[in-house]
């Protein structure tokens, strides 16, 4: 019971704090791609902080080609009902109606993702218009701040999904974090031109220069396949990792999923990373990122 009779300002939902707050709760965790309720259960049992519901993992999208779209709502609901952890789902870049559908289904986070075939080659979704938070991909600071300017409540560096090659994930994480470090050393008069050059909203450039970090949580994604890959990105300085094809395209998904979760928590402890890396069975086969295979990361404007 209220003791001093104050009525408060009621209850506010879908605020920036609440949207960004869920991402803060996912930090230090692993978000796993799953395509069935059974996968989702394996991920939850392994200690995933959240799952990403999608129809095909990126490795299969790469091989099978065709247009990759939002998943069937029945399939997403099946996954929502199978686990108690947060469930994310992907919409195509710029496809705000797919995003409306995902909000209607009740997913916890929407990934406006370059892994699906873009629906708009010029504009992204206006994410401020939604009560559900969005996560978006980025390759550099400018792209991250454009997405945050559009309302993204969480970022993930893109990497190159479905390859099992960590090189692009490292490149993008280093790009974002390195640009933040350089920005911190710039005098105020350089910030406007810097904002113009990287195509970022000026007020966000000023904010990052002052705080030395993105205003939202930033995970790594795209090509992480081993416990050591996950720990590498954590040591470089991201807040957590997404693992897509790396788990369910490997020999023993349950064991590998658990090992990646443990390596993400103990990312600074080589003894533990060594221990959890033993006897995991086959890793996903993987394809090298080359100019010909680098296709998904380029999507996004």
């Amino acid at each position, binding site marked *: 019971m209220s*003791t001093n009779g104050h009525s408060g300002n009621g209850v506010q939902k879908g605020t920036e704090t609440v949207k960004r707050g869920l991402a*803060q709760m996912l930090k230090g965790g692993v978000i796993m791609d799953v395509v069935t309720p059974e996968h989702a259960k394996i991920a939850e049992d392994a200690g995933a902080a959240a799952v990403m519901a999608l129809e095909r993992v990126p490795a299969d999208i790469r091989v099978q080609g065709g247009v990759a779209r939002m998943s069937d709502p029945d399939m997403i609901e099946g996954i929502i009902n199978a686990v108690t952890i947060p469930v994310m789902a992907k919409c195509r870049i710029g496809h705000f109606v797919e995003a409306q559908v995902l909000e209607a289904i009740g997913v916890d986070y929407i990934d406006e993702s370059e892994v699906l075939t873009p629906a708009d080659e010029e504009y992204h979704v206006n994410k401020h218009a939604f009560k559900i938070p969005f996560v978006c991909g980025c390759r550099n600071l400018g792209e991250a701040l454009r997405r945050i300017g559009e309302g993204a409540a969480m970022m993930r560096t893109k990497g190159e999904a479905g390859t099992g090659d960590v090189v692009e994930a490292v490149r993008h994480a280093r790009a974002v974090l390195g640009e933040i470090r350089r920005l911190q050393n710039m005098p105020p008069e350089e910030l406007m031109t810097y904002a113009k050059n990287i195509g970022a909203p000026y007020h966000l450039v000023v904010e990052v220069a002052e705080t030395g970090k993105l205003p939202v949580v930033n995970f790594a994604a795209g090509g992480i396949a081993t416990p050591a890959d996950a720990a590498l990105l954590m040591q470089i300085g991201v807040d957590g990792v997404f693992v897509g094809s790396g788990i369910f395209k490997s020999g023993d998904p349950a064991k590998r999923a658990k090992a990646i979760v443990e390596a993400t928590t103990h990312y600074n*402890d080589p003894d533990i990373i060594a221990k959890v890396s033993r006897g995991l069975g086959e890793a996903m086969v993987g394809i090298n990122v080359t100019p010909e295979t680098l296709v998904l990361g380029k999507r996004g404007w």
Partner: protein
Amino acid sequence: MRVGVLALQGAFIEHEHMLKSLGADAIEVRLPEQLETLDALIIPGGESTTIGKLAVTFGLVEPLRRFAQEKPVWGTCAGMIFLAKDIGRDQPILGVMDIQVNRNAFGRQVDSFETDLDIKGIGDEPFHAVFIRAPLVTGVNEKAGVEILSRLEDGGIVAVRQNHLLATAFHPELTGDSRMHQLFLDMVHSSEPAK
């Protein structure tokens, strides 16, 4: 004062910043031996299933339970679930507070919210509280010494204290208001044995 923050997963850095701003040392805890020199512990928000599984794998459940029997512990959100005796489902918990907690009691993320609360022990000014896929206390054993510190306007219990244990369904580490952290540090001070 050395206050540990369980750093298996979740929003532990936010708690560390808050503790440091109040002059306490904040120490990350991932393994049992890291509990040894601590005066108190915070169990942060995160995914309670993830935190529970990692605690089991790295042999932390028993050491944490023993710690919580002797020294002040505060659980926020997932941490509250972890401290409770009854959560109505099968997942690893410490089971040290005589409270019943319903996980994800408000629904999915779309139902996460912010609101002002009156909280006993931190002064008259309302506390702006952030609830993220939050749990709710659905029962307390007052005979065992559980004190209700705050309720929502509909009566739902969101902050409780039982002797040296504190639990909140919301996230004081996500706002700039340090009064809940100060309340916890005051509990730590008053629980220190007289010298």
